[in-house]
């Protein structure tokens, strides 16, 4: 369960520790201070923080894979990559669908990691939509503008999620 620890540790604490790691005084290159690597660094930290939850979901789905189907596949001679792609992934596709949908929604709303790690910088290389909304609302004190930005974000998330739901027919297999 070592892998799940990042997911249950408070995000802010994780981000602060990663910030210290990224900018150990005297280390070069400083990934957070470079506009071309800052966003990648935020992604790396976020993946480390965020995969635990999906791992649990997948792990549960893997354990629920029907033994008879797997046995039939192995009798038919399916091994390795073939077994993974044609048998196992389709079997857990509902979990994959759930995980991708939820992860996309939450990652569109990302705020804490860039806020702590880079405060949106350098320049605005890591400033995300929610940070812009936050700044419009609570630093520029333009609540109307912030509300408009929030609605743009909502519309985008709604659109992306709708596309995912429409697309699930092509690749998600529900049993029975």
């Amino acid at each position, binding site marked *: 369960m070592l892998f799940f620890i990042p997911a249950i540790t408070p995000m802010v604490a994780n981000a602060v520790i990663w910030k210290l790691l990224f900018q150990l005084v005297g280390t070069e290159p400083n990934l957070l201070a470079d506009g071309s690597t800052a966003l990648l660094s935020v992604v790396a930290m976020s*993946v480390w923080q965020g995969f635990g939850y999906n791992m649990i979901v997948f792990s549960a789905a893997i354990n629920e894979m029907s033994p008879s189907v797997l046995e039939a596949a192995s009798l038919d001679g399916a091994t390795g990559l073939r077994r993974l792609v044609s048998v196992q992934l389709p079997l857990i596709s509902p979990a994959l669908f759930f995980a991708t949908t939820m992860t996309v929604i939450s990652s569109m709303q990302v705020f804490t990691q860039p806020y702590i*790690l880079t405060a949106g910088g350098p320049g605005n290389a890591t400033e*995300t939509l929610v940070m812009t909304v936050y700044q419009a609302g609570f630093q520029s004190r333009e609540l109307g503008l912030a509300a408009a930005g929030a609605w743009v974000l909502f519309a985008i998330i709604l659109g992306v999620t709708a596309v995912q739901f429409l697309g699930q027919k092509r690749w998600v297999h529900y049993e029975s």
Partner: protein
Amino acid sequence: MKALLAAGLVILVGATACGGGEGTAGGAKQDDGTVTLDWEMWAGSEEEKAQLDHVAQLVTQQHPNIRIKLRTAPFNAYFTKLQTEFAAGKQACVVSMQSLRLGAYADLLEPLTAPEGFAPASLDALKMDGKQLALPYDLSPMLLYYNKDAFAKAGVAEPKAGWTIADFEKAAKALSTGGKFGFGMSFSDLHTLSLLLSYNGARPVTDEVKLQMDSQPMVDAVTWYAGLGAGKSASVPAGSAEAGWGETQFINGNAMMAVDGSWNIGSTIKDAKFKVGIAPLPAGARRVEDLRGQLRVRRGQGLRVQGGGDQGGLRAQRQGGPGLPRGPGPRLPRQDRAAAGLRGLPGEAEPGQGRRRAGRDVLGQGGAGRRRAAVHHQELGRREQAHGPAPAAGLHRRAERQGVAHHDPAAGGARAVRSREEWSALGFATPSVLGLGLFTLFPVGMAVVMSFFDWPMLGESEFVGLENFRYLFGEDPDFLSSLRNTFVFTGLYVPLNILVALGLAFWISNSRW
């Protein structure tokens, strides 16, 4: 001394239209003619409070019929409290703030008549549209803090008044040895811009409130500042989230000089494990002698000056510029008008409304039936698709049309029991439905409304139609890039997250097949 003043930060007091009658917040007038005025100020400790109380008592000594009642909050919470009080009409009669914030409160302050004795420039700096909005209370200059021990050890002469930029550069270079730096750089507005101002008079914003970061003096000054870091005689902030880098590095003993405000003298001396020296900022080629230029109040300009996150400073252009119509902004003389800013919060009328709506649609019998019928309909629809129409579909359809529960055609005897059950169900559901309505649906609805308004946190809101959206996509310097960043983040994060999670899940699940 004037250069010092120019780089400093004025704390001021302004008078508000606070409650006048008996029992209202902000101040009161007694029958015997004595007036009590509330005074809002930040204070971080009992000592500070005692000092302020002493000031308040001096007023009563001079004017026996005036009593000052002090209200304080720690600095970090002070401006949140102040805004909330203004929005609720509970503001004190006398409020304090830093001069850079004055523009945002301009419409809420009463014009004053300045008494004799103030330096004219200091009064001019607190004027807007010809009105004296506030009076100076205190002045906090930006200073050069230095590590006395390090200077002594390296045999470098300590900074003193009249020190020049050349002296500063020489000292910074001499003190940068053994992994330590002579100077701690910063990019918070006050800490950086004050030194640039002192260097060559560079100012980031014109008198017309336009950014001029690309003006020649600014380019020269920033080039010089960046050169300190490139030349290894100054510690460069490790990341863009490190707004207080120079000050922190100074206190930690990693940088031997830093720029900071006089308000931190006490805490710096307390926290530093070395002898702390203080001097005026080093003087550059051009002495700055215009107090007004730096401190003039600008409408709508809101700078965050302490506690990190200083991006607000660069928004002056958008806020003060002609972009969004703000209107002449009549002052808010009475409590009810001041309360306008609070419309985003649950008021007195709305919760009841929410309850009625919730009761009708979600919990009512018809509503519940409709919902159930709808679910069945959906399931049936899917089944129909697969196997042709199910036999009961017609019945369900009819039930749905009628909007009643389609199951259990209600035997007479069971009705009383069922309705009691429904009442208790209603009772159980009410708190969470109320909570949902109050804390989710209502704010969501408000957000829809607010997105069509120019809705400042303080002051009057105004319907602007789609102007906010047009601004976001047309003019906002940050919005499109933040949109792009969000998509890039999602595009990288989701696949990586899924891959890592999937790989580890297969690994830890050690499936037998």
